[in-house]
């Protein structure tokens, strides 16, 4: 029963929404898709801000909406935390009063997050006495996130919380989100159209297109499915979740292990035993039939070809299985033909650079 079930059908001014998916009620689930694909509409329906005429929204078996029995719980009775695209702090309240707004309305026995905890997590101590008018964009969004957490939600809803921020403010917030992801057991739906953000923060993905769910599944699988647009975009990439096992200070390298092998990454300061996520771009991976000797690439992994698809004229993308992990390699069609690549063939994946995400 530990899952989020969503089924929504509505027509809003010429825009038809028909979104059906289930997602695990653990970790962060991305609602991913281009602008206008209906992501925010889904989020608003899940929050109860909008009532879809036909719909069902349940989390771990508790239904907030089930139109088959005309059941609808209004937003203020749902244990949700909603972070809007613009921070939308209450202008008439101080930062502290903003944070306490939801907290004070949460029954004592439902409170799972303490004031001090949220303040510490999001680094807000110095901001507490300030008026909400006098904060930077990044600070405002951090307050909004803490405010949502303090109403002790069972489900956190984030509507492109980074999209209104400049790069510096984004870089400021992402570590806080990652920390919440690691340390907090609250599941979240995270609306985004930025693949980079999703690769970094999310575990599961619901891909939306034109008001419908095109596909949903674990992040690693979704990023590398050749029948979906993600694996065919210029920034196509796979993610590897690994653990830090060794440091080489002389060469400033960190070694990480995952179930498909061992990787070296440059200049990482993560502590020993820490979980780390990599994003490996398809364009940085090449394929060899024999284990390459004397190559500049540090990372060579034994792999098996699962699928090959043409993604642009003269170019193919190859799906590689490395242990339980899937990687993508983008090579020319000529290389694929010269090497006689076929499904099921054992090969070596050579990774030129490894981008550490966390």
């Amino acid at each position, binding site marked *: 029963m530990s899952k989020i079930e969503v089924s929504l059908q509505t027509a809003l001014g010429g825009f038809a929404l028909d979104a059906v998916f289930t997602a695990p009620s653990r970790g962060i689930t991305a609602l991913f898709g281009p602008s206008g694909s209906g992501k925010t509409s889904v989020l608003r329906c899940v*929050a*109860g*801000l909008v009532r879809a005429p036909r719909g069902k929204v349940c989390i771990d078996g508790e239904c907030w909406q089930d139109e088959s029995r005309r059941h609808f719980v*209004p*937003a*203020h*009775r749902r244990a*949700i*935390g*909603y972070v*809007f695209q*613009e921070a*939308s702090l*209450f*202008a*008439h309240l101080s930062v502290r009063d903003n944070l306490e*707004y*939801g907290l004070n*309305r*949460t029954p004592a026995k439902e409170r799972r997050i303490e004031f001090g905890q949220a303040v510490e997590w999001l680094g807000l101590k110095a901001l507490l006495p300030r008026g909400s*008018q006098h904060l930077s964009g990044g600070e405002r969004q951090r307050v909004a996130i803490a*405010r*949502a957490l303090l*109403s002790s939600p069972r489900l956190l*809803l984030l509507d492109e919380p980074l999209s209104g921020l400049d790069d510096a403010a984004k870089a400021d917030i992402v570590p806080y989100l990652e920390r919440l992801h690691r340390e907090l057991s609250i599941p979240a739906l995270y609306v985004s159209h930025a693949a980079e953000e999703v690769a970094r923060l999310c575990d599961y993905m619901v891909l939306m297109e034109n008001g419908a769910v095109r596909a949903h599944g674990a992040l690693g699988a979704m990023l590398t499915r050749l029948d979906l647009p993600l694996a065919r975009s210029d920034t196509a990439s796979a993610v590897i979740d690994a653990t830090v096992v060794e440091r080489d200070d002389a060469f400033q390298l960190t070694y990480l292990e995952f179930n498909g092998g061992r990787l070296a990454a440059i200049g990482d300061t993560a502590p020993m035993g820490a979980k780390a996520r990599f994003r490996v771009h398809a364009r940085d991976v090449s394929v060899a039939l024999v284990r390459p000797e004397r190559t500049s690439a540090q990372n060579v992994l034994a792999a098996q070809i699962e699928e090959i698809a043409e993604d642009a004229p003269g170019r193919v993308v190859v799906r590689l299985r490395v242990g339980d992990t899937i990687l993508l390699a983008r090579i020319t069609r000529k290389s694929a033909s010269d090497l006689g690549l076929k499904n099921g063939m054992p090969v070596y994946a050579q990774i030129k650079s490894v981008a550490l995400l966390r």
Partner: protein
Amino acid sequence: MSEADWLAVWLTIKLAAVTTAVLLLVGTPIAWWIARTRSWLKQPVAAFVALPLVLPPTVLGFYLLLFLGPNGPGGWLTQTLALGTLPFTFAGLVIGSVIYSLPFVVQPIYNAFEAVGERPLEVAATLRASPWNRFFTVALPLARPGLLTATVLGFAHTVGEFGVVLMIGGAIPGKTKVLSVAIYDHVEALEYVHAHALSAGMVVFAFLVLLVLFMINRRWEPLR
């Protein structure tokens, strides 16, 4: 100034204070409804509330007199409730003033609610605030500049009225004879010194009111 003039000043202030209180209680829900409704009645109701802006006060006063008089439906109601008839009483003045000044109170509050918009209320809903709670803890505080403007305008406009009061209240000293009517009476009796004293006072009062109003608007600009 004579004792009768002071009586008129006091009556005017009392009338304006009571009227303003009633106006805020009545005008705020009306402004809220107009700002939030999607009903087709929105425009008709807004136009009806704005009527006193364009109608001559004598027209309002005339119809109120008929409505509240012994043969009007309002008069029938007050008589049935053993309240007597309201024309030429203080209560009658309050009713006339409330209707006359309604647009001056509803408009700024409506503008303020519009400026607040939907979002802060949605945020409050996601933070477990019930609809009533959202109104009192988010909508009203955020609309404060509009409420202040409405209070000042409602008070000042009631102090300045003449036509409605004359039609429905007459000029009973201490009961319905307000400042503007007292000035009129002085001028008619060629008592220019008395008329000057009251009129100059009104000019100063009006200037101060508008000054306060503009200062309120400046003070709250950052909230918008």
